[in-house]
């Protein structure tokens, strides 16, 4: 099997078509992204968005929260368009009608409600987290050593600072990261071409080499493992090259959680290869048609993951949430996104787990389909 793997690797690295689309094309596209996004700043990206505020019990603290919420600046304008409601029900109703994106309820503690996931909700969540954390610290100081701080009312937020702090592990946030994540997802899905190639290479009804392999005394499973492992290795290498290029040449900050990034890359690349093998066996069309199908599928899934317009990702999540959970491109992009924006790993592991589930489903189908030992026609 090792020999099969070695020769298949050799064949992959000499296939210029696959190398271009799998390796060079994403790098070229990332370069274009950087050129196109170079004059877009955080301030251009984060627009003022409406939030609801319900004060359940008036106090110095609630006044301070309202003042702070209203004063957060992004560029020359306020980040939050604050709309005060006298009841939680009315605020929820406004959110339901999509008049506001987020509801803040200030009572004994600060509560935040959202209807959907999205960039605005993420920003609001980080603001709330940071506010609660800072308020606790100030309250503690106020109670234990009031002279140490001026007053709680001087507690102010600066939008650019807190956006910077959204991810607790790094400095600047690149608002265009969503596009890069979708691009990485697309690069992973381009592994489907190598998966298709390997499967077609082995199956007698898809290529003459397949017929030659089927009449040899080597078990099909060994051919599949050697071939698909080589395709996965190639794809992991291709995506790693893209990540290296983005990090060191384009200076895109992908974060520092390297083991998790590596795992997302391996799982993403595996999902791409599995998709190719799946399409190869499920479709009865010829190789050219299957290649065209995979191009269309990869681009469409990447589009829905926000490759061309980042808002699409949130629109899909809102209108067809199930699709966003079965779209491998979205799951891959979201795993990287979660690593960058979330201090914990909950969302990351959720994406990885669903991706692994999809890989298992696709490879199970491949095993069932490939287990047939002779063909109706060749």
């Amino acid at each position: 099997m090792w020999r099969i793997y070695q020769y298949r690797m050799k064949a992959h690295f000499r296939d210029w078509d696959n190398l271009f689309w799998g390796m060079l094309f994403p790098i070229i596209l990332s370069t274009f992204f950087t050129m196109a996004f170079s004059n877009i700043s955080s301030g251009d990206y984060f627009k003022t968005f409406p939030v609801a505020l319900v004060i359940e019990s008036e106090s110095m603290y609630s006044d301070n929260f309202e003042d702070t919420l209203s004063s957060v600046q992004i560029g020359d304008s306020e980040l939050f368009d604050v709309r005060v409601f006298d009841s939680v029900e009315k605020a929820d109703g406004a959110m339901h009608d999509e008049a506001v994106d987020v509801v803040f309820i200030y009572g004994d503690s600060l509560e935040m409600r959202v209807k959907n996931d999205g960039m605005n909700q993420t920003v609001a969540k980080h603001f709330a987290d940071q506010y609660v954390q800072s308020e606790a610290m100030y309250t503690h100081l106020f109670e234990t050593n009031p002279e140490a701080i001026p007053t709680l009312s001087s507690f102010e937020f600066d939008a650019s600072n807190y956006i910077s702090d959204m991810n607790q592990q790094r400095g600047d946030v690149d608002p265009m990261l969503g596009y890069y994540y979708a691009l990485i997802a697309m690069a992973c899905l381009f592994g489907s071409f190598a998966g298709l190639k390997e499967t077609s290479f082995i199956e007698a009804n898809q290529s003459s080499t397949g017929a030659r392999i089927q009449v040899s005394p080597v078990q099909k499973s060994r051919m599949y493992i050697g071939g698909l492992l080589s395709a996965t290795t190639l794809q992991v290498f291709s995506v790693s090259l893209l990540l290296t290029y983005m990090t060191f040449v384009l200076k895109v900050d992908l974060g520092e959680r390297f083991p998790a990034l590596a795992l997302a890359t391996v799982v993403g690349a595996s999902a791409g290869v599995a998709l190719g093998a799946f399409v190869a066996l499920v479709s009865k069309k010829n190789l050219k048609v299957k290649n065209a199908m995979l191009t269309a599928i990869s681009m469409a899934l990447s589009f829905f993951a926000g490759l061309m317009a980042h808002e699409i990702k949130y629109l899909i999540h809102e209108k067809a949430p199930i699709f966003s959970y079965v779209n491998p491109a979205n799951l891959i992009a979201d795993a990287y996104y979660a690593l960058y924006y979330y201090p914990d790993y909950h969302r990351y592991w959720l994406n990885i787990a669903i991706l692994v589930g999809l890989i298992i489903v696709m490879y199970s189908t491949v095993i069932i389909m490939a287990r047939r030992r002779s063909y109706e026609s060749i």
Partner: protein
Amino acid sequence: MIVRVKDLVKRYGELTALDHLNLEIKEGEVFGLLGPNGSGKTTAINCILALLQFEKGEVQIFDQKMTPGSYQIKKDIGVVMQNVAVIPELSVYENIDYFCGLYTSDRATRKAQVEAAIEFVGLNDFVKFRPRKLSGGLLRRLNIACGIAHKPKLIILDEPTVAVDPQSRNNILEGIKKLNKDGATVIYTSHYMEEVELICSRIAIMDKGRVVAQGTKDELKNMIQIGEKIDIELLDRMCDSFEKELLAMPFVVDVLCDKQHIVIKTQQDSNGLNQVLNYFASRNVALGHVFSERPTLNDVFLEITGRELRDGNGNGKVE
């Protein structure tokens, strides 16, 4: 018996590609499967190799039932497919090594086998070439080397000379003879009767998925009425004035007339040439060239099926 095919039936929907096919191939033979495109030769090969499912019948190779999981049997079979089956990204040497490696795991043995195969097909000067750099003939030779490098006991060649130049074709045919001389049993499919006549010790003629005749080439030629074909050029007369008289002769089977050119087919063991020459001499007809030959396999096919071997029947999909 090396290969025994018993009552094989293969259908593609309404079309019966193999209609109760029976074959027996003995050790040391070069067995030819001859038939026009669409006669079912390739389908038969694919069923023998357990690549294709079939509705009825049984295939035995080396006296064991052949199934897709018969790995022990497969170890001793070499297959040269009709379509060139090589890996475009690998060199000539790497291709042969890759496919040979599916049979031979020992590195040293494999190296010797690969080098012998390269020598055998005469690709020594092209070992580092990729397939796309090779001419059609060289590519066919590579295809053969990939199929026979592991020194199989049974070699199946499915139309290996299609689209090959005459020189490469001769090399391939000579190579097959040598493989047989070295001990391999060969099954050779073709629609070129000359090739089959040249190299095969026994031949099965196929038509519409059935074996219509089987035997050595002499046995096949003796099966039909025609014993001799006499081709004569008349120098000063048109042939149509003799056509009726010739056809009326008891030993003449058929007469084909084209202006001053006449072909007379005579019965087996009739000493027809002498009688025909005497006939024209008695009528003072000046003759140009005179040529006599035994019937070809095409004549055998024509007499049995009523069609030429190379007619094609528009049924190429079966192959």
